[in-house]
């Protein structure tokens, strides 16, 4: 029996609103996926632990605080340390285009800029599942 695509949507860092993350979560759900939402202010350790317990194929992180250059590499490092770098990571929020190459070098699979159509995020997850 075929499994469902499971995605963890996380909101790390200290910034306090998660509207964007919730909209993405809803879109993925409407596309037939099982989306685990973990709430605000997650540390990289919490995110990776949750992703492993939930056996997701993807982690999507929304970051508005500007801390993306530390948070993403930290999550990638923890995944690798635990032999779980089969989990694919993508991101969104407000991330300057200049920072994207650095994040991708660190193993982040895709970074979506503000205003990216939700269909594009859905397409990305489906194609890489």
């Amino acid at each position: 029996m075929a499994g469902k695509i499971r995605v963890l949507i996380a909101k790390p860092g200290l910034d306090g609103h998660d509207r964007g993350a919730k909209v993405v979560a809803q879109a993925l759900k409407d596309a037939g996926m099982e989306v685990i939402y973990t709430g605000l202010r997650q540390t990289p350790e919490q995110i990776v632990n949750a992703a492993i317990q939930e056996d997701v194929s993807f982690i999507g992180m929304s970051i508005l605080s500007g801390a993306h250059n530390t948070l993403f590499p930290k999550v990638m490092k923890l995944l690798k340390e635990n032999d779980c770098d089969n989990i694919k990571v993508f991101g969104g929020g407000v991330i300057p285009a200049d920072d994207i190459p650095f994040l991708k070098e660190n193993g982040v699979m895709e970074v979506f800029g503000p205003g990216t159509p939700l269909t594009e995020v859905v397409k990305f997850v489906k194609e890489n599942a």
Partner: protein
Amino acid sequence: MIDKSVIEISRFITKVENQDVEALEVLEKRLKEKDTKTRVIGITGPPGAGKSTLTNCLIRKLSKDSKVAVVAIDPASLFSDGALLGDRVRMQEHSTNPNVFIRSLSNRNCLGGLSAATPDIIRVFMAYDYDYVIVETVGVGQDEIDIVKFSDTVMLVLHPASGDDMQAMKAGVMEIADVFVVNKCDIKNEAEKTFNVIEYWVRMNPRDWNPPIVKTSAIEGEGVDILIEKLQLHHDFIIENPDINFRRNQLRAKHEITQKMQLLIEKKISQINPKEYDIMLEKVIKNQTRPLEAANHLLKGVLL
């Protein structure tokens, strides 16, 4: 480093959730020569009553000296089959506690408050020697009573303004409660009213075990010690009265055999040769064969 067994359990659960027959066989084998001490606590009640927040409180206390697993089930969308699983939000403080394993499940459009694979997933945690499995049901339906077949103790969580909910729930859900919880007691007057309604109901429906009613405020952690005490009392009661559990075990076994038969038959159906299926399909469309006749023919090819 996260313990390797966590990764192993997690991947195993995925296979079990997808009802992979080989994984289910491995599970049965592992449990065969095992005397499990795992206690399963079911938590049901209307949406928003505070089931997840209260689960969080229970984890906080129980995980100090025990291994605690949580299985939290949310409804799938009828339209997309997808699901938004948000119960973890209330339990995030335990994400990195090595004694705690939280798994969110979609009900995958199964009725009854659990997903079809939930009982097997509970058993995975038994196989890995968890002390407690807390199961949070979907909490939407009025007839979410499957949980009683798979728990040692069922908690029904109500919020203060539950008078109407209780009308809607009818007897079924009330009858399966071993412990009643009136949560959000920080909202004073209303809570008292709900408490009285339950108390009256309990008096009118006497049983071998008279379910206690506990007032809690999950958000402030109030009443949780008393709740744990009552859960323990019920546990002691079923240990001392094994016959009480007989009916429950019978329901559980029936449910399980039926579900596994369905699973095996579905697997057989999936083995039907697509070409042969297409031939039959064509014939039914053209009115040369009746659907029942076609089904009989196709099944004969794969059964036995």
